């Protein structure tokens, strides 16, 4: 065999293995999603397939939107533990303002006020940690306590356990609603992809995550891009709150609770390196959100006993973390 052919084959094999090695996390994340989809189709091969498909889209919509925004801060190696409480307060505010003004205009005003608040909180979250030299989780902890208190106070002021938006914002037809949600997710995914892959925002946030000192010495303004990263999350939080409101039509003291942790799990399942950096991808948000939602859905439709559901989830999560661990002594993807 001529030497050139052998050498070409060796090169091809080497590049194949290099590709596998470089994309282990992505491949595992996609494989996880594929397994969930297969199980979903196996255990839903009946008249309720379409119903369950729309249920999955509904459940995954809020996670997807929040995760798309969270990619911008996770790519810097940061996280925001106040996300759930923020969503709770935003939904309550939208209902209170919407009901006060009334009609579709009330909903629009409610959303705009919430959006402004979400962007302001994002800016505060990003800026304070830099100005005070605090880890980002500390400022988000402050916001978490602030929003927890605000949520309690707002709900107590109503004297009700649950408040309802009087204006209907959800399309009556289930398929229309599902298409609307798919449209919102797709639109935000396109916008997110554009900003994350083709603008300075994505490039600089990834650079900050990869090496903050190097990024700073390259002339990247840490304050500006950190603040903008958090504002991107704020924008998505406001949109996610609106989507949540369309789904429930109501809000209460615990609305949004748990989202911060859920989003972290979604992103890890989607292959997001927790340390951020250049390997961060916007696709992690969608892959992770749908894998996470399908996992819960599939376990229930499979008839896994209640006591086992959390155990199985924890086991799968642990296995994914172990499989994607790249550092000999590390326990999480980096």
């Amino acid at each position, binding site marked *: 065999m001529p030497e050139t052919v052998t050498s070409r084959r060796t090169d091809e094999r080497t590049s194949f293995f290099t590709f596998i090695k470089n994309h282990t996390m992505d491949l595992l994340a996609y494989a996880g999603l594929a397994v969930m989809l297969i199980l979903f189709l196996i255990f839903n091969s009946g008249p309720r397939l379409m119903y369950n498909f729309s249920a999955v889209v*509904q*459940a995954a919509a809020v996670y997807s939107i929040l995760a798309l925004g969270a990619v911008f801060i996770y790519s810097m190696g940061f996280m925001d533990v106040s996300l759930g409480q923020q969503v709770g307060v935003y939904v309550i505010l939208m209902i209170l303002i919407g009901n006060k003004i009334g009609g579709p205009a009330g909903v629009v005003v409610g959303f705009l006020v919430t959006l402004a608040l979400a962007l302001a909180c994002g800016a505060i979250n990003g800026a304070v940690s830099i100005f005070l030299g605090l880890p980002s989780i500390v400022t988000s902890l402050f916001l978490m306590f602030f929003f927890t208190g605000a949520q309690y106070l707002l709900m107590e002021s*109503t004297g009700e356990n649950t408040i*309802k938006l009087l204006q209907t914002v959800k399309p009556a037809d289930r398929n229309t609603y599902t298409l609307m949600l798919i449209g919102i997710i797709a639109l935000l995914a396109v916008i997110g992809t554009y900003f994350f892959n083709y603008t300075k925002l994505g490039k600089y946030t990834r650079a900050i995550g990869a090496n903050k000192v190097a990024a700073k010495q390259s002339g990247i303004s840490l304050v500006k891009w950190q603040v903008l990263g958090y504002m991107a999350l704020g924008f998505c939080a406001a949109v996610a709150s609106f989507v949540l409101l369309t789904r*429930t039509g109501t809000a209460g003291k615990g609305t949004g*609770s748990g989202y911060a942790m859920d989003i972290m799990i979604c992103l890890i399942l989607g292959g997001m390196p927790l340390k951020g950096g250049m390997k961060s991808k916007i696709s992690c948000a969608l892959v992770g959100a749908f894998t996470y939602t399908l996992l819960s859905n599939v376990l229930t*439709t499979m*008839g896994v006993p209640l006591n086992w559901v959390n155990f199985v989830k924890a086991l799968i999560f642990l296995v994914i973390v172990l*499989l994607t661990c790249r550092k000999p002594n590390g326990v999480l993807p980096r």
Partner: protein
Amino acid sequence: MKSTKKVLALVLTLALVFALAAPTAMAKARTTKIGVGLYQDSGAAVTAVKSYLGSLEDALNVKFTYTVLSNTDEAQNITKVQELIAAGCDGIICTMDMGTEAILQECADAGVYLAGYLCDYDTSFRNNYDNVFKNEFFLGTVADGGCADEARRGYDFFDSVIEYNERTPDAPIRHVAMTVFPAFAFPYQQSFAAQFVEKVEEYNAANPDKAIEVDPLSDETDILMFRPMDSTYFSKHPGIDAIVSICSGSFVYPTMVSAGVSNTMKLFAAGYNDGDEAVFGSKGAYQMEIVSPVEAITYPLVLLLNKINGVEFPDQPAEAERRGSSVLLINSDEDLAKFQNSIYLSFKPEDAFLSPEDVVALTAYNNPDATYAGLVDVLAHMTIDDIK
């Protein structure tokens, strides 16, 4: 070696997932499937409910699937109901009134019926009656101890304190303080506290020599935000002989123990927790506990099964109703001895108020003589004295 381990881990996980799924997938013969959304995933009450419902599966040709709902997050409840529907449930029993209108929309889309248990659906009853109680997919609910507008739990606490004083004339209770959960979550607990105070005032007017002092509810210490009671409670209420805990005693008793007052102070509480029998009556601080009979779930179950089988009671109300069941009031050692023979503690289906045959006879599709009034009447006979 490393990659072998990783592959092995992946294979083991998939094997576990399939192993868990296989038996349930194979057992997909067409039986009616009822989803039950409980308020927690473990504990004596949950075990008792599962034991009771499990005993009915063969007689009714029903399979039960369980999930846990949230009392604060409506989105989670919608997701859980969607998952139950996706799992093939024909009817769903819920214990939470959170996101109910959206949940009913899901039920309507899937042609699945919904009924309530352990919940009076008060928020929906007051604010959203037309969309919930007039909804054809909502069949009604049963609340333990009566619904919000008819419950007399404060009077039960008063009766219990007086019964204790009559039983122990040498060391009667003369000074009481109370605890409640916040009004936004349990709007009627403060009404129950007011009922208790009202009865005490009547009693004091008639019996000035046996007067009982009740400390007014303090916002600082007496409204428990779903956390254990703070030990400052005792400095806020010095000299009390007993605590009337209108919320669960499990939030109060541990603080009494850590403050060293559990041997001298008495506790009258709602709810029953594993191990309470060891510190009840003459053995410890607990002097009264209120327990919800798990068999009350028969009400939503029968309504669902009738509807799924296309049958209604001849006297079925036009709109869904909320009904109250009796409760198990444990006031003495004798009551506790009886209670220990209930399914709530023994977990034995044969200790339930209703046998599978009784439940079959309550359903309209099995028994043409069955009536709605008969079903409601059963709910009134689940007291401590009804235990066999």
